[in-house]
């Protein structure tokens, strides 16, 4: 992960240098805000990548002597199927439309949104997946 951390760090350094120059040269608040936030974005990612790089040993893709076979095995948990994101998206869409067309629609959609969100978050904690 060190390579990624250095790449993003160099972007952050560039933005930290360029931002005050831009502000002094232009006096433009909009662009300066965008540059400040972009610099913070770079620093956030640099911090995250550097911390993870310290926590874990070099990954297979970081090593020159790694073999393809070493990457075999379980990578993570990917839900094999789920209809809940669809119901959640429909309910949240109706809630947002409620903010535009009338709060009655928001009030009707909110319970459905709550059910869909709980169904999604707890799907692999129930039934066959209870543990």
């Amino acid at each position: 992960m060190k390579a990624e951390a250095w790449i993003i760090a160099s972007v952050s350094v560039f933005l930290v240098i360029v931002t005050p120059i831009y502000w002094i040269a232009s006096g433009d608040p909009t662009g300066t805000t965008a540059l400040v936030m972009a610099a913070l974005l770079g620093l956030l990612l640099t911090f995250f990548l550097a911390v993870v790089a310290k926590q874990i040993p070099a990954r297979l893709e970081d090593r020159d002597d790694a073999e393809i076979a070493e990457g075999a095995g379980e990578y993570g948990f990917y839900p094999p199927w789920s209809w809940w994101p669809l119901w959640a998206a429909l309910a949240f869409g109706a809630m947002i439309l409620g903010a535009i067309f009338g709060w009655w629609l928001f009030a009707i959609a909110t319970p459905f949104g709550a059910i869909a969100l709980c169904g999604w978050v707890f799907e692999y904690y129930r039934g066959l997946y209870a543990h």
Partner: protein
Amino acid sequence: MPRLRRGLIMTPVATTSVIPASRLHGQPNRPSQVTVGTVVWLSSELMFFAALFAAYFTIRAVSPELWALDTAKLNVPFATVNTTILVLSSVTCQWGVFAAEKGKVGRSGKIWQFREWGLREWFALTYVMGAIFVAGQALEYVELVHHGITLDSSGYGSTFYLATGFHGLHVIGGLIAFLLVIGRTFMARRFTHEQAISAIVVSYYWHFVDIVWVGLFLTIYALQ
């Protein structure tokens, strides 16, 4: 014969309920994909708030007399107390994460022995502090509306309510996330790696929303 038949029927039932190791123990030596995904999403959230900050500073630059008039109506001491509560809630949230990393989901002592608290107690306290912050924001909105600052009263009102309102929605989203993490610890009989990661990514989100508020507080109340 009956023994063999029972064995044949039992086997598929037993294998369907196996929970993957990545959920129970995680994948050591690899970054958690949930964590990486959360940080990517938080990056886009950062740029979303960048747009709100840019709008604030742009409109502020073109109408300084409006700012001088409307910022005088802000209740800075009240907002400072509210900000302190939110910043401290990040500390309690982090203690909940430390408990989760040790695999300590519930308290091992009495409720007032906070040193013995687990993830649930720390997150519940964080929830209460976040809820106090949202309630404080609502009170402040009422006060400002009485002073004539509304969403469509002026450019100041629009940027103020859009920036703090979108932040408030994020805090409410975080409150829901705390409840869902606590809910997961009660849904499962054992505390898994997946639950610990859920707690950690919710803490990332909470710290992020907290830092955005510190930026908004400095912009709106300190710098004005």
